[in-house]
């Protein structure tokens, strides 16, 4: 036990003694790991929020299908849907995108009675009359909007809105740049009457398949699409896997450059190291003890590198809003007003990055380890 402690302390001292090398290897590790950790954290954060909103949402989503994409559903079947046994609530929504000057806004139109209870305002109230809107926190801050202010917006039609409330800052990223208005106002803004972009159907548990059959009877001559919660969350997850895949592809390139750098850095001072190992072996160190010392050094340096990399990614997310990396996961980020990026630093990726660092540095020290275990002290000391 004492022996291993001694070796651990010595490993620490050695890292300090070979300061330049330690710094270089650490920097390489940080450069390799920190974009990776940042990306995973952002991806996890955004995915987490999306899944939360899916889970809090309706049980079935109904849209039309045009060319394989979701298309608007006419409202004329609304009453029929409501009558289906097992359906508790039917919520038509309009979700679209529009620009408020140069900033992208997500426009959500919904009937006042359908507004989910989970929505809370930080200031003001919900819309009650037409032309009244609630805006997301980030949009409001960006354009200095307060309750009572008026602004105009143009999609198909030009409309003037009055801000009656502002969403709280802790709402999800989608809430941050949202403009929330009545169903009718949204329809007018987009120039579409009597259609919804989707219809949310809340159901009693266990009735979904019967309801699907009934919906088929209603819509049998139309091209429609019905998705349940599981499918939607699956799409969300798949979408993120794709995005992570694209990021990984870029990452592999960066990585391919980083690994040789670390190998070179680890080889830095190799002749001095070799001599040192020779002296150690000549004065009675066992090969195994030398290897243990080397491994401990790598362990410490990877721990140091990974820790700094994690801290740096936290800083990257918190202070720089994930610059350069966030756009992989939120394509419109440059058009959106600045918002608090959701990021989750899960223990597993952090642990993985630590192991990864260890692996890299171990690969870097393979040569000196191999030499120390095979060559005789005389050869090493030369």
């Amino acid at each position, binding site marked *: *036990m*004492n*022996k291993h402690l*001694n*070796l651990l*302390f*010595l490993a620490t001292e050695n890292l300090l*003694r070979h300061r330049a090398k330690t710094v270089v290897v650490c920097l390489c590790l940080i450069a390799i790991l920190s974009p990776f950790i940042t990306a995973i954290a952002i991806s996890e954060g955004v995915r987490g929020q999306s899944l939360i909103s899916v889970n809090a949402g309706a049980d079935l989503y109904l849209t039309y299908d045009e060319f394989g994409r979701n298309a608007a559903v006419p409202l004329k079947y609304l009453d029929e849907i409501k009558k289906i046994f097992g359906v508790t609530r039917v919520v038509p929504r309009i979700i679209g995108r529009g620009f408020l000057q140069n900033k992208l806004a997500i426009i959500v139109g919904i009937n006042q009675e359908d507004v989910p209870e989970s929505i809370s305002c930080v200031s003001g109230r919900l819309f009650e009359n037409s032309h009244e809107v609630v805006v997301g926190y980030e949009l409001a801050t960006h354009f200095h909007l307060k309750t009572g202010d008026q602004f105009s917006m143009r999609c198909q039609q030009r409309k003037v809105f009055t801000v009656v409330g502002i969403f709280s800052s802790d709402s999800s990223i989608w809430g941050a740049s949202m403009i929330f208005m009545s169903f009718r106002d949204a329809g007018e803004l987009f120039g579409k009457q009597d259609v919804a972009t989707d219809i949310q159907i809340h159901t009693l548990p266990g009735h979904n398949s019967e309801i699907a059959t009934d919906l088929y009877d209603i819509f049998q001559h139309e091209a429609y699409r019905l998705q349940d919660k599981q499918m939607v969350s699956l799409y969300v997850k798949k979408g993120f896997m794709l995005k992570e895949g694209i990021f990984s592809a870029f990452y592999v390139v960066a990585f391919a450059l980083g690994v040789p750098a670390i190998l070179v850095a680890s080889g830095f001072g190799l002749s*001095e190291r070799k*001599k*040192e190992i*020779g*002296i*150690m*072996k*000549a*004065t*009675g*160190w*066992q*090969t*195994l*003890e030398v290897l243990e010392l080397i491994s401990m050094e790598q362990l410490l340096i990877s721990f140091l590198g990974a820790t700094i990399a994690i801290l740096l990614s936290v800083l990257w997310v918190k202070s720089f809003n994930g610059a350069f990396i966030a756009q992989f996961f939120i394509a419109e980020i440059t058009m959106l007003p600045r918002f608090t990026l959701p990021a989750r630093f899960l223990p597993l990726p952090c642990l993985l990055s630590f192991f990864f660092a260890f692996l890299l540095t171990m690969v870097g020290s393979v040569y000196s380890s191999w030499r120390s275990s095979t060559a*005789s*002290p*005389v*050869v090493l*000391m030369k």
Partner: protein
Amino acid sequence: MIRTEHLCKSYSHSSQYEIRAIYDINVTISKNSFVVFNGPSGSGKTTLLNVMGTLDRPTAGKVFLYGEEITPFSDIALARLRREKIGFIFQDFHLIPRLTSWENVAYPLVPRGIGYKERFERAKLLLEKMGLGDRLDHTSEELSGGQQQRVAIARALINNPEIIIADEPTSNIDEETSVQIRELLNELKARGVTILVATHDAMFEKVADVVFKMKNGRIL
């Protein structure tokens, strides 16, 4: 105590020719003797000491230690032997750079699980004996050649070896320090240590029990 039989070590540079650093060495060294190997540069002194001291393996021949043939020993067994029985003083000191004198001296104690305090105390004691009590915290770069040599000697003694192998212990050192080092080795001999020295220094022949003259890799 140490015996060699037809000991050879050659270095092959290419397939055509090889350098015979030592050739057909047969010596017997008895316990607690002071043995000196003397010879011109390149005569194979260092090579012989390295092979006898388990730092290098012979190309042919046998080395016996305490009557046991150690040539077929594994690297692990040889390292253990070095730790327990042999202390080395090298021709060019071989101190670890940027470590202080006491850390260099105590370095062999680290893998033995000896705590920091005891390591320091033991190193301090030895360095004080070497007259370096005021240089404990100086790195090897801050020491003169003679001081470095004395640090190296202290390191060789830290494991209380039964055999000291010294390769040119006085070659980089002024006359006064050489005298000190000779006296020190003599003192160690008096305490029962077996001493093997390779040197050009004729002064050693006066304190030696046995002198082997070497030339071209052979003992004359």
